[in-house]
């Protein structure tokens, strides 16, 4: 007997199906309810992703519901003085009073200039819906503004993934993968998408013999379990990947010629200006036919053999192929060169590159469901550790280039894209659209990949100067302090924070503090009082995850939806966050009409008749979800059905999972980036941005190929001799679960989580012993921490877990760990104008603290 299921349905107890909502991953849960009270949470065995398993956070979820420090009613500040630790003098208010007060400010702002409202809406289980709210309000400072999503996220992943193969997020095809190279990622070991599911799949794959190689400055969980750990210097992954490209192209000559010729723009001809050379007649990019020795439009069916390498003359100009250009540009990136930068020995780089190339088994095929696919069982996957740097986009481009070279994108065993298509709302997967140049077109639903230039700039994130940056929310506090300096012609007045905490998720807190103080109205939709609420005017209490409805699909290979529903009536006078936003839209008069919130919701959720919201009717979020359920099941299933069954997940058929590019070619040469960069350069010169504002916006970074660009933190610094990095762990989702006492009971026993981890040898040299109190000092902060010595960390690096170093009045987790973010610069130099990431490495000194 091998019983697996939670099947007991005793009298007096019920099990409610839901999903977790304590991080991105939306794992299916069942909540045990005894005598009307939720008592225990377990995984839902009917969730085909998790099979009933669940992580520590999900299992400890009941502690969040019953937290006595929860907000129980709306609060309005009586003390006008805002400051860290200064009592706001909260008074309890009715919902009507609080909402009306906010709505009247919203109305005024919206009338004057909607951009004066900043939205920091970071409720991960429904952020697309909240984006629709800021869009309906009309502010460009919507979404993740004024928050450190540009710190916490791996933005380049989204942008580069999208323009490469339509991937919002990438997943290795673990069913067939044999060689997985992780860079700065805990994929399958901790924080990443679908942790619970992937942990099992990756464990299975490793048991089958998958080789795991991990590059990370610290011995992450993944690195600790890997076949090989490369203790790389922080923010130098780009150099390592460039050397691997160099080796594949120049030394080993391992690349998928057939795929490069037909599936990418590798054979496209580039002129001296390094743009596509276009056919005079059709305007289409040209390719050199090796047999006929003539240039032909890329889609000319008479092409016999595509020239991959070489120099040619076409249209009367000297041309080289994109592939030749890449070869040329990576010629100097030898492993010896990279070893100097990233502290990985050249011999190791050589071996890894060869292993990777050979594992790709170029030429092999596999038949799945009657279709022949290339089998490329190698995958590179990265996350914040590689990407959240000023050079993150270049590193991500290098990663995709490697994957394209061996033909391992979108094929069995390689990397699969999770698209931003309708599947997440219940609909079917679509193929990525193709442009007239034969190239893949960046596709996005509710996600902007491109911000057109405008002057004066509208965005407090300065996106007008950073056309392809995903997010630069971290710049908003800085720019808010003096918008004119950047050419902005208005002053922000109001801020709504929903499930975000700028004090713990961004950077230099003195800037955050001043920016928050400057605003007229700051609203927080929250479950607890946190660090930021010391600077907030009105706090609106939200339901917890066990008190609210939602429908979501966070998988990469399933159709369908998964429900979240209340396991208990709200314990206090709280509201669903979405209902708060709907109520505010109604009171500030932007709910109705063709540009209202209802209309935006219809678009965002892909609602079509007859299951569309009436543009002039107010709906509750529950009613909206019911419409969504019906719409994407053609009227077959309503919200109640999902409440009973949990989910209706079905696997996406393989023909939609693999090489679903609709014939479009992938960019070995990232022509889109090149084009965007040239346009930006023209505009910056035209409007004399540097002359007028002294802003040096780099434009030479938009080459369209990855190249080595150091991070500003690599500058020699004798005083601050440590790189300080932060990492996500299995216990805390940002700071969100750091006040969950059951989790903290475990986390405080973890030998690493609440310590400042440095290398044993380095510690010895500095006279530090395990458990010593130390000062961690940077240009921005000086805090006391406890040092932990480890063999598992790069010698110049200090590692700190996210989620700790809190200073709220909540008794749980107080005095544990330090916050790495407080040591990060918020300035233009440390912002990746191409990536949208802030530089998430800081420089600190660490020395013994006596007493």
């Amino acid at each position: 007997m091998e019983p697996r299921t939670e099947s007991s349905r005793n009298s007096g107890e019920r099990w409610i199906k839901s999903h977790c909502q304590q991080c991105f991953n939306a794992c299916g849960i069942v909540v045990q309810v005894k005598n009307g009270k939720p008592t225990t949470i377990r995984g839902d065995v009917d969730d085909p992703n998790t099979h009933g398993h669940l992580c520590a956070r999900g299992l400890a979820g009941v502690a969040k519901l019953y937290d006595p420090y929860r907000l129980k009613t709306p609060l309005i500040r009586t003390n006008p003085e805002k400051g860290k630790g200064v009592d706001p003098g909260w008074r309890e208010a009715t919902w009507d009073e609080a909402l009306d007060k906010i709505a009247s400010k919203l109305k005024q702002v919206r009338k004057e200039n909607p951009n004066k409202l900043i939205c920091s809406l970071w409720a991960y289980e429904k952020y697309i819906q909240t984006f629709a709210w800021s869009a309906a309000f009309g502010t460009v400072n919507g979404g993740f503004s004024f928050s450190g999503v540009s710190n916490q996220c791996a933005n380049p992943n989204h942008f580069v993934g999208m323009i490469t193969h339509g991937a919002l997020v990438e997943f290795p095809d673990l069913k067939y993968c044999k060689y997985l190279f992780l860079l700065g990622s805990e994929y399958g070991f901790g924080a990443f998408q679908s942790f619970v599911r992937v942990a099992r799949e990756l464990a299975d794959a490793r048991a089958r013999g998958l080789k795991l190689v991990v590059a990370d400055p610290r011995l992450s969980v993944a690195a600790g379990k890997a076949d090989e750990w490369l203790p790389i210097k922080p923010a130098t992954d780009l150099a390592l990947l460039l050397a691997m490209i160099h080796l594949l192209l120049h030394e080993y000559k391992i690349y998928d010629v057939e795929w490069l010729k037909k599936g990418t723009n590798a054979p496209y001809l580039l002129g001296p200006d390094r743009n596509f050379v276009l056919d005079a007649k059709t305007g289409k990019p040209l390719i050199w036919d090796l047999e006929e020795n003539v240039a032909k439009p890329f889609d000319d069916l008479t092409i016999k053999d595509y020239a991959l390498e070489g120099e040619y003359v076409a249209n009367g100009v000297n041309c080289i192929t994109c592939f030749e250009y890449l070869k040329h540009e990576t010629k100097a990136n030898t492993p010896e060169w990279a070893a100097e930068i990233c502290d990985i020995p050249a011999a190791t780089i050589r071996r890894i590159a060869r292993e990777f190339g050979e594992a790709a088994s170029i030429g092999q095929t596999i038949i799945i469901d009657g279709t022949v696919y290339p089998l490329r069982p190698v995958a590179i996957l990265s996350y914040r550790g590689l990407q959240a740097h000023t050079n993150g986009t270049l590193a991500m481009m290098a990663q995709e280039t490697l994957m394209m070279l061996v033909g391992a994108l979108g094929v069995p065993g390689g990397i699969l894209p999770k698209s931003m298509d309708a599947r997440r709302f219940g609909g079917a997967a679509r193929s990525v659209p193709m442009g007239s140049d034969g190239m893949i077109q960046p596709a996005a639903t509710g996600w902007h990949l491109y911000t057109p230039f405008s002057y004066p700039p509208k965005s407090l994130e300065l996106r007008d100067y950073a056309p392809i940056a995903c997010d630069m929310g971290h710049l908003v506090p800085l720019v808010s302090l003096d918008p004119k300096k950047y050419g902005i012609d208005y002053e922000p007045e109001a801020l709504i924070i929903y499930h975000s905490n700028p004090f713990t998720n961004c950077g230099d807190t003195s800037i955050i503090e001043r920016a928050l103080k400057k605003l007229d109205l700051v609203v927080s939709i929250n479950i607890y009082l946190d660090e930021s609420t010391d600077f907030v005017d009105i706090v609106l209490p939200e339901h917890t995850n066990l008190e609210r409805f939602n429908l979501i699909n966070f998988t990469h290979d399933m159709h369908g939806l998964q429900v979240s529903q209340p396991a208990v009536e709200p314990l206090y006078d709280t509201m669903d966050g979405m209902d708060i936003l709907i109520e505010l839209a109604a009171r500030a008069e932007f709910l109705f009409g063709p540009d209202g919130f209802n209309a935006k919701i219809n678009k965002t959720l892909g609602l079509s008749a007859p299951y569309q919201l009436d543009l002039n009717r107010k709906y509750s979020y529950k009613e909206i979800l019911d419409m969504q359920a019906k719409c994407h099941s053609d009227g077959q299933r309503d919200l109640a059905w999902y409440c009973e069954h949990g989910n209706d997940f079905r696997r996406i058929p393989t023909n939609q999972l693999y090489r679903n590019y609709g014939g479009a070619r992938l960019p070995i040469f990232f022509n889109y980036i090149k084009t965007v960069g040239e346009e930006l350069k023209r505009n910056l010169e035209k409007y004399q941005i540097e002359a007028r504002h002294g802003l040096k916006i780099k434009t030479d970074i938009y080459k369209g190929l990855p190249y080595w660009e150091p991070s500003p933190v690599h500058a020699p610094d004798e005083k601050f001799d440590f790189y300080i990095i932060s990492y996500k762990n299995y216990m805390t989702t940002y700071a969100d679960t750091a006040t969950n006492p059951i989790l903290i009971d475990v986390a405080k026993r973890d030998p690493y989580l609440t310590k400042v981890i440095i290398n044993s040898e380095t510690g010895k040299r500095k006279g530090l012993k395990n458990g010593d109190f130390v000062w961690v000092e940077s240009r921005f902060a000086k805090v006391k921490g406890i040092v932990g010595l480890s063999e598992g960390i790069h010698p110049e690096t200090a590692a700190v877990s996210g989620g700790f170093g809190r200073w709220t009045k909540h008794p749980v987790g107080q005095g544990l760990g330090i916050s790495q973010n407080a040591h990060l610069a918020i300035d233009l130099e440390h912002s990746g104008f191409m990536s949208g990431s802030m530089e998430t490495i800081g420089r600190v000194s660490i020395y013994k603290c006596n007493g």
Partner: protein
Amino acid sequence: MPRWGMVFDLKRCIGCNACVVACKTENMLPEDTFFTRTFVAELGAFPNVRRVYIPSLCNHCEDAPCEKACPSGATYTRSDGIVMVDQDKCIGCSACAVACPYDNRTQLTEEKLEHSYYGGGELASFEEPRLERWIAGTVTKCDFCSRRIDKGLQPACVGACPTEARIFGDLDDPESAPNKLIHQRNGKPPLPEKNTRPKVFYVD
């Protein structure tokens, strides 16, 4: 009658502590109390270093030293091999706790049981049931979630484990998953030199 046992697949365990939290919630354990723990060790020296996670719970030893040490008859072995503590009989002398080579026994003091997770104060409503579940002062431990087993379920930690690193089943059944693993991969009990004959094994 089955003879329940467990195998830890150290290759699969990633130290995520889901088991620990599942156990704490299933057993309504107060702060600072664990029936299962995941130990961590770094092996080797920079840069050739790896990390191992070693989960641990009551090994339900065939030759249980805790049972031999117990003077009150509270500790006994069920016919399915689960080493149990009868709360009503336990006097809280801790003789079992120092007899267990694995440090898997813990005393549920009144102070611990009545201490709220939220920095003391009144117990939150999800904490209250533990006062009914446990008798203050007694020394207790993992019982393989015997109540779940009696309902045909697996122990809570096993059900939670994302990587399925905990494999539970009947050691008398040669075809059971744990038995197969023990034989195929040469399963070893913890601290075999203590001669306790555990029903928990490790494979790597």
